[in-house]
């Protein structure tokens, strides 16, 4: 068979190129993920997958406020008002959610010191103490953690 009397080499080449192009286009059509280019040059399903496959670990201050509104009210009066509960008490665990008898972490003085130990790198406006020169290393003798300016 001859196409327009083309030499045989050329005919073979055209057929070969055609076969390669066709197989590429077929592969491309079949292998491109369904949701590709839905929102941009990426797999659109990745967005919803990302949301559904990751569950939040930190519950957030608002969630604590649902059960402990009184504590949040106290907290709001003092200079720790902007602190998140989980910053000192740790992540709200599944056990605590299921049964409130499983207590959250009880903060230790080390947690206070983590922020309040004096450091030349800390901004001057921030309250800092030099622990070894301070009156005591048991913070809660003199400070209420939820209202640090008040004594117990």
């Amino acid at each position, binding site marked *: 068979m001859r196409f327009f009397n083309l030499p045989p080499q050329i005919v073979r080449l055209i057929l070969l190129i055609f076969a390669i192009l066709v197989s590429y286009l*077929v592969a491309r059509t079949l292998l491109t993920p369904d949701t590709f280019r839905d929102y941009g040059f*990426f797999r659109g399903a990745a967005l919803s*997958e990302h*949301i*559904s496959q990751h569950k939040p670990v*930190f519950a957030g201050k608002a969630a604590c406020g649902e059960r402990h509104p009184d504590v949040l009210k106290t907290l709001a009066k003092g200079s720790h008002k902007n602190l*998140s509960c989980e910053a000192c008490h740790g992540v709200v665990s599944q056990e605590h959610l299921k049964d409130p008898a499983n207590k959250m972490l009880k903060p230790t003085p080390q947690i206070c010191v983590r922020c309040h130990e004096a*450091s030349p*790198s800390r*901004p001057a406006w921030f309250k800092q103490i030099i622990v070894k020169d301070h009156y005591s290393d048991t913070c809660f003798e003199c400070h209420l953690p939820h209202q640090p300016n008040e004594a117990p």
Partner: protein
Amino acid sequence: MLATIGGVFAGLLALPAARALKKKFSKTTAPSDYDASKHKWLMCLDVDKCIGCGLCADACKTENHVPEAPHFFRTWIERYIIKKPAPNSITLRGEVMVDSPNGGRGGFPPSLVPRDEILKAFFVPKLCNLCEASPCTQVCPVGATFDTPDGAVLVDPTYCIGCGFCIQACPYGCRFLSPETKTAEKCTLCYHRITRGLKPACVEICPTQARVFGDLKNPIEDDPLQAFVHKNKVNTLKPHLGTNPRVLYANLDKEVR
């Protein structure tokens, strides 16, 4: 022969058409109660408010199950110590020392530089700069990393081939190749949290509001982001690279890179 070629051509034309049709009738990929096009999230940072407690770096690891090894961070804190100039050197500022032990995750140990040699010292929290012209999405060969319509830059872990090009292209060192998944990993702006109405873990946990987070499309009353730009003169990291970071820093020193 000609008929075969014609048939193949017809089949080729039919395939995309069938796909388009299938797409139209299958349900959309957007989560039902969250519309990405209605939000534009952003985080800004105030260097003068950071106390270097490291709670953010720690919370990020917990929240996002970042590999435990001390070299993988989606957010971390750097400590800058600028020494007093050496005697007889007619300069204003001396040597600059930077460190970030374990990303600042456990707080910072006392500095090795004696207090009376320090001219100025401060902490700088780092995270993905959410560039307007993000070099990482530009160079991804397969479209596995992308800018979401609502302002985050994500990696599709099922599509990433692990070539590492995006990691080389990020000027801020915000990406790493996860030893577990062998794919690129980075700050997602806690995408799974913000789409559920929560704040990113680092913002939630920060005791001093050094991290300010908000939605540019839905400003709330006393919006923290609006207040932030109203109050501060802001800067970005490595502005000369033209990546145009959306993350703004207040009170940034020239030594911070």
